[in-house]
């Protein structure tokens, strides 16, 4: 066979890999913040008085959930310019990731909102809080506490799926791996190392969310 594994290239590649990992973390951080904000809005819209709004959110959720993320990404990055919307790869990646994640988290946030007993908002109204205060201060924190584990899993799934944005040349972890293996001809070793880094990242993100959730929400997370 005569093929030996070699990791000698790793020393020179550490900088590029770290840079790529930082980009991946940046992408998922933006996506998490934007995605959760949007899904709170959409979950509220799904429960609004306006039938059109409810329908629109439902259609959006179904379309995103039943098509591959990679196709959505290509549609946004390659398809939208023919409508005159030209996006930078990083912006396109964040847009695609946010739209994708929000479709899943809208359902999750919605389930959380439904799980808060009606008496909570009635009590808050009785105390004289305004509708917005009731939502932001009473309902939302309790809902987030319930759904925190599911939200954490969704963030990790999205981070792993973000590897495909390497296909539109965003220089994140997977793309750095593509570049490295083209230079070193050590394809297997390169992807092996990068896969382990992804594994480490997903464990770190879970740890971070568990610790953060416990501190901020007092959630007893898995």
């Amino acid at each position, binding site marked *: 066979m005569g093929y030996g594994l070699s990791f000698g290239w790793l020393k020179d590649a550490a900088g590029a890999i770290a840079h790529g990992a930082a980009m991946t973390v940046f992408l998922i951080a933006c996506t998490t913040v934007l995605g959760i904000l949007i899904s709170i809005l959409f979950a509220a819209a799904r429960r609004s008085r306006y039938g059109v709004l409810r329908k629109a959110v439902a259609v959006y959720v179904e379309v995103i959930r039943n*098509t591959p*993320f990679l196709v959505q990404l290509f549609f946004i990055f390659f*398809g939208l310019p*023919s409508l005159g919307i030209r996006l930078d790869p990083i912006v396109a990646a964040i847009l695609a990731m946010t739209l994708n994640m929000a479709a899943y988290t809208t359902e999750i946030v919605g389930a959380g909102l439904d799980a808060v007993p009606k008496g909570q908002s009635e009590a808050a109204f009785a105390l004289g809080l305004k509708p917005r205060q009731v939502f932001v201060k009473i309902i939302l924190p309790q809902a987030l506490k319930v759904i925190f584990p599911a939200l954490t899993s969704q963030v990790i799934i999205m981070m792993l799926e973000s590897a495909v944005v390497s296909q539109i040349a965003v220089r994140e972890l*997977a793309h750095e*791996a593509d570049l490295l293996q083209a230079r070193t001809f050590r394809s297997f070793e390169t992807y092996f190392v990068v896969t382990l880094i992804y594994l480490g990242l997903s464990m770190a993100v879970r740890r971070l969310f568990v610790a953060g959730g416990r501190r901020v929400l007092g959630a007893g997370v898995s």
Partner: protein
Amino acid sequence: MIEFTFWDILRNLIFASRWTVLLSAVAFAGGAAVGLAILAARISERRSLRRFGSGYIALFQGTPLLMQLFLMFFGLPMLGFRIEPWTAAALGLTFYASAYLAEIWRGGVEALPRGQWDAGASLGLHRLQELRLVILPQAFAITRPAAVGFLVQLIKSTALTSIIGFEELLRTANAINNATFEPFTVYGLVAVIFFLLCYPLTQYSRMLERKTAAH
């Protein structure tokens, strides 16, 4: 240069989607077979096997599918296999599916009351018979909505195999797009085809879920 009408594009895409369907079917069947073995390890009485099972699941659920596919594509030739995109895609998705299916079924096995095992044992069944005759049929039944839901995820995941060069729907679309420069139409149609493949299954999964919830 060849001129592509809308119908040419559509016909080619529909024709290519049979590979998407075939790959999904192969990966689901293979994943079910391997997943069964992983499940057996995961719920085994031997601690080392349980460790292996949970490690396997954590590894495949904690790394990107794209990286798994690359490792298959570049790793298998090192073991002396002749590698083609089709084999790498089918094997990669099989292992990926096996981890998820094993985890889904494990949830079903653990949801069953302890008495089911005891009842099996009191009938004089040994462990394998207990699993085959008592535990697994029930575990499969209660996790069917989740398994169908995962099939949808698997169908969507086949799009990634275009990156390692397997000629399925999305790769064909890329080629057509390079010839026609009509990305909006081409990728829009790809999305529609995937939607038509996935949406009925999503609805079916929901229907099953309602049924199990009603019982």
